[in-house]
């Protein structure tokens, strides 16, 4: 075995391995890096958070700006508290922003959509969004439709 060829092939393998890892970073994951070091937490109270769970996307104008951390019940208000982490660079959500639970496609997953209001002041770590719209529950929708249909 030629020593030069041996060293060369080992070198090639190392380069190929590292290159593959770089390709996985750029081409496959598209440079997606989660766990943004600077992110801040906000929460929102919903009448109904059916179908929403941890890791669900938080979007604004269709662009992901954070993710849901947990969904719990607020024992005082008897409403669902959705805790969210928002990326640090998204620091322009006004305090009168509204949150709604939306569905990706007819049968797709639930996610939170944020809409920015008109106020100058912005949401900071620990703030709560008051203005919310709950999840659409298909069964309730059909029930209402049938009720209206019966009235006519």
């Amino acid at each position, binding site marked *: 075995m030629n020593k030069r060829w041996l060293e060369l*092939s080992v070198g090639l393998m190392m380069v190929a*391995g590292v290159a593959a*890892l770089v390709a*996985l970073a750029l081409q*496959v994951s*598209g440079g997606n*890096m989660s766990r943004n070091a600077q992110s801040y937490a906000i929460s929102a109270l919903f009448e109904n958070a059916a179908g929403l769970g941890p*890791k669900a996307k938080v979007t604004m104008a269709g662009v992901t700006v954070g993710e849901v951390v947990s969904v719990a019940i607020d024992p005082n208000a008897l409403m669902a508290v959705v805790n969210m982490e928002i990326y640090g660079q998204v620091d322009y959500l006004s305090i009168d922003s509204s949150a709604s639970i939306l569905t990706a496609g007819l049968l797709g997953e639930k996610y939170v959509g944020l809409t920015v209001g008109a106020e100058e002041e912005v949401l900071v770590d620990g703030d709560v969004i008051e203005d919310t719209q709950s999840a659409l529950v298909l069964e309730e929708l059909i029930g209402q439709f049938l009720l209206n249909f019966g009235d006519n």
Partner: protein
Amino acid sequence: MINLIADLGSGLLGKLVRIGQALLMLLQATIVRPKASSFSRLIQQLYVVGVQSLIIILVSALFIGMVLGLQGYTLLAAYGTEQAVGQMVALTLVRELSPVVAALLFAGRAGSALTAEIGLMKATEQLASLEMFGVDPLHRIVAPRFWAGIISLPLLVAIFSLVGIYGGHLVAVDWLGVYSGSYWGNMQQAVDFNGDVLNGMVKALVFAFLISWTAVYQGYTCVPTSQGISAATTRTVVYSSLAILGFDFILTALMFGGTV
């Protein structure tokens, strides 16, 4: 009954003693100041352990990626969501199949060869003869092989993932007509570098440790006869495969199961 318990106890104690021995051997072999010549020995072993495993890794990665592309396509096409095939192929490979399959192949290809080689050196008294020349066989023989395993497998796993994803692309996009943009686009949206790719690499590193450790220990402690070496080689493959699958479950639960 008492005998049974006593046997069980002494059996368990024996296992613990062996694990302790293996750990001490590893510490003695690896905690040492490297010499200039150890680097060229490491290169030599990287060739034997890493480069010579490349072919089997490349071929299996290509076929596994193609099968995933085909299976994913037929499954997802039933719901009209065949665009998601890229995401399915990539996540399956990066999180699970690349580390596990590459590690199992590595155990069969490189682990068994390491055990057999060290065992044969023991049987032909090469280890004893090194000792008589004042050279510690743990440093000379065991350490470079152990490190070569630790370095090679993560690289092979990264190559495995990438080749597999292109194999899936070949079937899903080039043959079955999924739009190339959605193949990559969906994948890029779904795959997270830290959460998926790096966790897969952590798995690879853990498996590399398990395989290399098992292989050098079995070789170094085998009974130096032809039956002894063949039994040790079998044990390397069986023990490291079981360890890979067991640890894969634990690691998966830690990495991806935490939110449930």
